[in-house]
């Protein structure tokens, strides 16, 4: 406990230090503060690993702030696991920020960045560690608040303004759902404690589940609540995107896991609901990602996809559990949690490296990048590792968790209900599609960003980023490989034996095969390579104009999924004469519709806007009308009281 307290203290100190010098532009202070954060993160890693390995939970009551409420903390294995996720990403992001903060913007605004980041991290930590829902709600709000301000970091950009309002409303919506769930729970059990209670009936449980699912779902970015995610991730600074995508949405997953498993009594249909939501999120997430050419939005859509995968694991857990298949249930849950960790790692890695790229090229449009592998080789290699992990390729970590989910799916036949099995098979095929599309998408992303020739002036003159911005992601890349290769052993240390291949052997085998191949190749070529122009059918030397573009790359897949991308045709024609015979000018445009935005979000927003205009119009009148309002109310009151009594 003491160590945790020290860690928290270090974070707070880091925040305070920068706040004290908030009006001075002193890089040394910022650096010192970030080092404090890194130290705190290391402490958290140490402690949470210890708890995860020894399975001794920590329990602590902090303070009683008012009659019914207090802060109590309980760090059990699950919490420790999520704390580990938070702190790993924290450490690497903080290392990355050592330089990124100095590079990305100027002015004293940077000073606010560090305290806010610390608060953001601490609120996530405390959310995970809280043993009562009141404290959780508080941390949840703090998390929303600090992340909102961080998203508004580049506040003068038009894009950020839009994002800000959108993000804020969505976070508030999620808070409201959580509040509903927590209030229901409090009123049913009489306490905020996060624990199963005999007072919770099946009906209440279901209501609470629905509220919490929506609340956490919004934060996690489940489709159809996902729309804030691409916006918020793309307009915030890259290290914050990494934190948000790597950790914040995981915190929502933690909430879901915690409540569904430990507090509420799950029913089969919850599992099915979660499974379907997960599958849809995964599939649509990746399909939208394919279409996206903004690197950070692309990554954000992949976050939606991966959240979907995590939810698939969770859904499978509930389904298997409700049939009493505890081994399979455990496998699914382990897969889901492991994927949570993996996604945190490789997604942070991708966001950080993408941030470096964006910083260097000054654009987020991948069509304007290209050829960066030559100017930024290390960043490219790191991004490649992230891309391979997220594409679930062996022996990287992403593969392990997806493998476990596949195995859980393959065991669906143990379920006695054939309808559920059919559902699982359908979800399985969609899941397979998802994972293959993700691979395609990352071939596109890596290929277009880093390979071939630069597509713009700025991409041509990019430089490798400073060392700190490589070390941070470097650690993550190392973890990507380590967690994949040693996955079998890691599960062993934790005391689990999931049925899965030992990737260490696979890895060793690969190396064994590599050695003779290398020898053969050395013998034959002597290591000499001749460089020559690319073959171009005899045409003049190809330039960046003739390269395959990102849109070209994803075009065939988009054609296959045409029904999902609804298009809008805009046709405007003007004529010189009134008989429409002499064409003057015109405009034709086909654009991809943002279905969720245009069919769900905007109608609701417009409805609210319309109502509010009516309401406020009724208040923009003169005194007579105001008195009339009072008059009518008085009459109604008099009548109501007279007649009701």
């Amino acid at each position, binding site marked *: 406990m003491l160590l945790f307290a020290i860690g928290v203290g270090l974070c707070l100190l880091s925040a305070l230090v920068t706040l004290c010098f908030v009006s001075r532009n002193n890089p040394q202070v910022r650096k010192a503060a970030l080092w404090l954060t890194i130290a705190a993160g290391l402490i958290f890693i140490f402690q949470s690993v210890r708890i995860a390995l020894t399975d001794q939970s920590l329990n602590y009551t902090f303070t009683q702030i008012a009659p019914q409420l207090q802060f109590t903390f309980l760090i059990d294995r699950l919490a420790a696991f999520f704390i580990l996720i938070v702190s790993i990403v924290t450490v690497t992001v903080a290392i990355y920020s050592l330089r990124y903060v100095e590079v990305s913007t100027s002015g004293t605004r940077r000073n606010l960045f560090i305290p806010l980041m610390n608060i953001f991290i601490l609120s996530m930590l405390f959310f995970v560690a809280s043993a009562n829902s009141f404290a959780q709600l508080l941390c949840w709000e703090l998390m929303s608040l600090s992340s909102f301000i961080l998203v508004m970091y580049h506040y003068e950009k038009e894009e950020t303004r839009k994002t800000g309002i959108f993000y804020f409303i969505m976070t508030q919506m999620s808070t409201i759902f959580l509040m509903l769930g927590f209030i229901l729970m409090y009123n049913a059990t009489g306490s905020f404690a996060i624990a199963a209670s005999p007072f919770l009936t099946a009906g209440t449980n279901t209501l609470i589940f629905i509220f919490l699912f929506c609340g956490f779902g919004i934060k996690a970015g489940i489709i159809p609540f996902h729309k804030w995610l691409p916006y918020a991730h793309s307009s915030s600074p890259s290290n914050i995107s990494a934190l948000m995508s790597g950790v914040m949405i995981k915190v929502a997953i933690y909430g879901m896991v915690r409540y569904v498993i430990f507090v509420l009594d799950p029913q089969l249909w919850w599992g099915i609901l979660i499974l379907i939501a997960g599958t849809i999120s995964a599939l649509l997430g990746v399909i939208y990602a394919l279409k996206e050419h903004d690197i950070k939005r692309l990554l954000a859509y992949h976050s939606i996809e991966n959240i979907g995968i995590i939810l698939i694991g969770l859904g499978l857990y509930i389904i298997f559990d409700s049939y009493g298949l505890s081994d399979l249930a455990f496998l699914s849950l382990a897969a889901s949690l492991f994927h949570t960790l993996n996604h945190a790692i490789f997604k942070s890695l991708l966001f950080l490296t993408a941030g470096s790229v964006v910083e260097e090229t000054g654009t987020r449009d991948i069509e304007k990048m290209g050829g960066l592998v030559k100017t930024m080789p290390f960043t490219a290699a790191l991004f490649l590792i992230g891309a391979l992990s997220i594409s679930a390729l062996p022996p990287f970590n992403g593969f392990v968790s997806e493998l476990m989910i596949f195995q859980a799916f393959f065991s669906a036949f143990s379920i006695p209900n054939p309808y559920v099995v059919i559902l699982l098979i359908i979800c399985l095929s969609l899941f397979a599609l998802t994972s293959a599309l993700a691979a395609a998408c990352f071939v596109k992303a890596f290929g277009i960003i880093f390979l071939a020739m630069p597509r713009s002036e700025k991409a041509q003159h990019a430089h490798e980023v400073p060392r700190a911005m490589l070390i941070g992601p470097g650690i993550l890349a190392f973890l990507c490989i380590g967690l994949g290769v040693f996955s079998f052993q890691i599960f062993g240390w934790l005391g689990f034996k999931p049925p899965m291949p030992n990737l260490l052997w696979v890895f060793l085998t690969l190396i064994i095969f590599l050695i003779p191949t290398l020898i053969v190749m050395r013998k034959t070529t002597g290591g000499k390579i001749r460089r020559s122009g690319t073959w171009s059918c005899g045409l003049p030397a190809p330039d960046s104009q003739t390269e395959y573009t990102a849109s070209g790359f994803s075009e065939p897949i988009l054609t296959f999924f045409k029904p999902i991308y609804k298009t809008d045709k805009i046709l405007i024609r003007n004529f010189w004469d009134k008989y429409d015979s002499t064409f003057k000018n015109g405009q034709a445009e086909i654009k991809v519709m943002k279905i969720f935005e245009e069919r769900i979000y905007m109608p609701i927003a417009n409805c609210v806007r319309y109502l509010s205009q009516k309401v406020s119009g009724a208040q923009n009148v003169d*005194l*007579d009308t105001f*008195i*009339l309002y*009072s*008059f009518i109310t*008085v*009459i109604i009151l*008099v*009548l109501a*009281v*007279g*007649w009701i*009594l």
Partner: protein
Amino acid sequence: MMNPTSILLIKVLFVFILGTAALIIMQKSLASLFSLYSVQSLLMAVVSLVLFKETGSYVLLSLAILTVITKVVIIPYMLNKVRKDSGIHRDSEFRYLTPVSAILVGIALIFVSYSSFYRVFQLSQDNLFFLGAVIGVSLALLGMLVIISRKKIVTKAVGYLMMENGVLLFGLFIAELPFIIELFIIVDLVIFILLAAVLSMGIDSTEEDLTRKLNNLTKWFKQ
């Protein structure tokens, strides 16, 4: 228990009071409006005198005297002064309600207050007192109707005064408050009218004018 003549007298007075109210709703000339108000206030004073005669409560007597002094003399005088100062003599604009429909609504209001008060007070009060209370509340609502339907601030002020009369009437028949409270209410009323008068001039005058008038108010405050 009450003298039948007094009852008759009070009922007649009720009719007159309602009549003045109706006239106030319709009247366009400001001077007549103020006169009507003082007549109405006088009628109120008479009502309270009659009640004083019946119950012997000195509060009612002093109330009657107070009413005569402030509402029959001082306030109409002030209002007339404002009228002369501002040069506005007529308020011929009507909003939401024409005079005729205002009267119809007024009748509906009496019915409304009657019906809802009836259910509450049916067991606790005898007939005349109940009627008085209903007329009082209706008068208050009619006053509000004046505020709604008339444009000029001065007219609105008269509407407010009429409301106050209604409240007073209600008090007379339900339970008279301690005299000190009544006194304060009246003082409050006077200040209100003063302020409304100054402000109503402010609405129609230039900024310098307003400042000057405000300064007059300042002097008043200093004294």
